[in-house]
């Protein structure tokens, strides 16, 4: 554990900018286009239009989450016939073939994480929009969790990419990527973009002391 520091008050309340690039706290002129005196990055008290951007990415991610999970992500054909796999049926295949630990990992990364991320970010955006005053510390932790686990959803895309590369050239079998692959990739990118556009400082802005 690190040391907890003596608190003062929010930088923005005192008209101080904190630079998102170099971290310098500065009193820049209030003119539009204020720049950090150390690294010349454009300064803003909060990410501009954070909540609107977050919702836009989230709505797009929700829409694409449906085809990503219902359409096939992979087609397999071999001498013994052909089959198609959705993300869920790929998980069940791993489970049935005895690799239950990998089945759990893929299930968590591909199905639970994207959905939990969309729900959590929607709750965070709504909580800021409607000014819910409670559980700020929990919401801050939730945001950090969402930001750190989001990238794991790429797992299934990487699996499909490698299977496609390995099995495309043999005469006996072929693996092709299905239409869920781009939809799923888009969900990953959109949820990561939603998390990055959300400004966690908004959670604390109306705190009374």
């Amino acid at each position: 554990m690190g040391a907890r520091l003596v608190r003062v008050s929010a930088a923005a309340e005192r008209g101080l900018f904190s630079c998102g690039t170099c971290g310098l706290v500065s009193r820049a002129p209030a003119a539009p286009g204020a720049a950090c005196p150390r690294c010349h990055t454009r300064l803003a008290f909060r990410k501009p239009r954070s909540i609107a951007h977050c919702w836009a990415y989230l709505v797009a991610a929700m829409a694409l989450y449906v085809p990503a999970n219902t359409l096939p992500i992979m087609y397999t054909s071999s001498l013994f016939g052909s089959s198609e796999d959705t993300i869920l049926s790929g998980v069940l295949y791993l489970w049935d073939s005895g690799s239950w630990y990998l089945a759990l990992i893929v299930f968590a990364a591909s199905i639970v994480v994207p959905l939990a991320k969309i729900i959590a970010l929607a709750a965070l955006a709504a909580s800021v929009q409607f000014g819910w005053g409670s559980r700020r510390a929990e919401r801050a932790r939730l945001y950090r969790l969402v930001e750190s686990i989001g990238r794991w959803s790429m797992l299934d895309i990487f699996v499909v990419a490698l299977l496609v590369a390995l099995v495309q050239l043999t005469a006996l079998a072929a693996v092709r990527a299905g239409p869920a692959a781009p939809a799923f990739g888009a969900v990953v990118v959109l949820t990561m973009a939603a998390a990055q556009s959300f400004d966690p400082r908004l959670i604390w802005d109306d705190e009374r002391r």
Partner: protein
Amino acid sequence: MNRELLACPECDLLQHIPAPRPRKALCARCGAVLYRGGSGLERTLALTLTALVLLALANAFPILTLELQDERTTATLAGAAAALWSQNMPLVALLVLFMALAMPLAELTALAYLLVPLARGARAPGFAAVFRLLQFASRWGTVEVFVLGSLVALVKLGHVASVEPGIALGSYGALMLVMAAIEASFEPRELWARASFA
């Protein structure tokens, strides 16, 4: 200079870093890490150069090799992207290249670009822009996820065919560990403090 003022990047609370500096400091209000201490820019630079070599190895050799009835096929990262591209999946191909190769490469190159001149006391041109690229790339690079994805592919295909891990899988695994070490040793505040005097 003895009491540096900083604002929490996640809740904007103004706080002083006491002198002498603690190894690691957390925000008093939201618990975000304000300051990690790090283990020195020289060590970060050494790890960065190591990681660049590993990334080169990881892309020069096959990740997985499949043997099926005397036929041998190998998969590299570039090969996987090319295969997706040829199947009319250009966006997925680009996404795979972006997150498993381009962003880790950009992160490491940016770090080396900033740290090499700084070791000789000089500030690289375009310092702030390259630092922003570094911030962006470290959020979008997914080396550890790619390593796990390779293992899943290995096990999945191992049920029906003979699959072997290649040199690149080991290299990507090592790269994952070195990049975790970079994250632990790199303290951006130290970089900016040094750059202001350069």
